[in-house]
């Protein structure tokens, strides 16, 4: 390795440095509301880029994020809460002794959150990738659903629908932003390697990929487990940000929001997923006006709570029909600059 840093590496360093500076600036200057939204954006960036890896890059349509995020959140919460905090909370049933004994610091908690999700993904991949594609969608949808049912019906571990409270608030912009940066970097590294190429090949033409000697089962499983790992970590960060989790947080709405993000950003584009996150998470706050009465000057509409969700689904359909590529298409931000130079 040479000491001389190439031009594109300079650019990467500049991006990383300015992001870190922004994190520092934001956490010391912005008000808490803005910081919270930035935290949400950082966490959803992690979730979106990892969801995009299986859905966009590998082209395997899955609907799992709510399930893995839930697992990550619960694992983290159980590891962060100490025995006393747990035994005081459990109200429906007494917790199992081993549940009380669980304890770890934040880094290990996040790691185990990811690991646990990834292992579950590995188990799921065997039935699902035995057959092609489509079944993944329904199985993962069912999986998210089962996770919620398990969380509700095992109060000895999860405290049932009451959920877990008083989780130590470890998440801050340094954690969420830092891990988001790592996640984007790691995913881009995967995409720009033989594994990323194989994932795209599976998406474009699975038979042809097999004919090139690609072990498509392995590639799909890699993508699925990587997604699950990061979703677990994201769930852990979310739990440590909210300090309180319960099964009703992890419904299909959660997945739907991520789906909008990656479709809008451009399926298959990692930087697109980041842009989509900023637009959707930021935009959802901005779009609050849709739920309120609207005054068009000559005519006032009544308040229509829920209108936001209608608009979201219409956006999703329209993007698919008329702008199938989303904002970034399958390109990355880098490619745009390349074009501009020519």
């Amino acid at each position, binding site marked *: 390795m040479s000491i001389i840093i190439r031009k594109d590496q300079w650019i990467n360093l500049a991006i990383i440095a300015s992001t870190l500076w922004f994190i520092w600036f934001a956490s010391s200057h912005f008000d808490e509301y803005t910081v919270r939204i930035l935290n949400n954006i950082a966490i959803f960036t992690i979730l979106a880029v990892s969801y995009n890896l299986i859905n966009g890059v590998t082209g395997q349509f899955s609907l799992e994020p709510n399930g893995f995020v839930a697992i990550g959140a619960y694992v983290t919460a159980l590891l962060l809460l100490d025995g006393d905090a747990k035994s005081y909370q459990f109200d429906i049933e007494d917790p199992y002794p081993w549940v009380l004994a669980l304890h770890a610091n934040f880094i290990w908690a996040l790691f185990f959150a990811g690991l646990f999700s990834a292992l579950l993904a590995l188990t799921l991949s065997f039935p699902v990738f035995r057959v092609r594609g489509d079944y993944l969608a329904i199985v993962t949808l069912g999986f998210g659903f089962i996770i919620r049912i398990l969380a509700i019906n095992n109060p000895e571990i999860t405290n049932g629908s009451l959920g877990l409270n008083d989780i130590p608030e470890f998440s801050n912009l340094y954690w969420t932003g830092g891990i988001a940066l790592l996640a984007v970097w790691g995913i881009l590294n995967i995409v720009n390697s033989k594994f990323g*190429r194989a994932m795209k090949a599976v*998406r474009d033409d699975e038979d042809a990929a097999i004919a090139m000697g690609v072990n498509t089962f392995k590639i799909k499983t890699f993508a699925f487990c990587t997604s699950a790992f990061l979703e677990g970590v994201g769930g852990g960060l979310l739990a440590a940000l909210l300090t309180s989790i319960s099964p009703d947080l992890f419904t299909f709405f959660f997945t739907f929001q991520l789906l909008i993000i990656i479709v809008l950003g451009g399926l298959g584009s990692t930087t697109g997923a980041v842009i989509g996150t900023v637009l959707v998470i930021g935009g959802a706050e901005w779009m609050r006006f849709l739920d309120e009465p609207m005054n068009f000057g000559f005519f006032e509409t009544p308040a229509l709570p829920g209108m936001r969700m209608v608009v979201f689904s219409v956006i999703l359909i329209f993007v698919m029909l008329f702008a199938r590529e989303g904002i970034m298409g399958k390109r990355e931000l880098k490619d745009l600059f390349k074009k501009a130079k020519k």
Partner: protein
Amino acid sequence: MILELKNVTKKFGGVTAIKDTTFRVNSKEIYGLIGPNGAGKTTMFNIITGNYEATEGDIIFRKEPLNGLKPHAIVRRGIARTFQNIRLFKSMSVMDNVLIGFDFQAKYTYFESILRFPRFFGEEKRIKKRAMEILEYFKIAEFSEQKATDLSYGQQRKVEIARALATNPVMLLLDEPAAGMNPSETEELANLIKSARDDFDLTILLIEHDMKFVNQLCDKVLVLDYGKTIFEGKPADAIRDKEVVAAYLGDFVSHD
């Protein structure tokens, strides 16, 4: 002898697509598989490449049976293929298409790629160099950064063959390589296949309709009709064979 099919039969439900077929392909040979539409040629390819499992019979490649192996494992043993209708990876550049062929040859792990270990850079450099050499051989290096599907039809064929060669095969299976090409393109392709055989030490098994192309290129042909072998031998002799002519005439009458 490099590939041997012994008494291979393939049934789909009640339909017998291939019936008790036996043939051998020798090393460095260009072997043609011909026959009218629906004769079972592509099915034969799919059996060799492991996409279908033979109902009966054995496939022996370099003295080892291929039965039961997964398609990607068969590729790794040295059998590469192209498709009847070109199937390039449409979102990827010409270079990336060819690099897919190096997938199992680049020796670095998933974690090494995530964390960008030195081995990642070394291996990527190596396979990119090799890919460039193949592209140069096929005279399409100048398009390497273009989207594969933006190329002309003839060039896309070349990319597909280049991509197959990237897997470093011993044997290459070409499914109607000349389909949809004009005579001069066909001529060029025939020469290219011949020289590739010599330069890459290949054995080639190909499916083709164009008898002129087959005549010019193949050392030996096998004629199939409704899953049955009706002729095996030199292409020049095949044209004179009564049964072959009957099968083809019948084919012409019914389809063209």
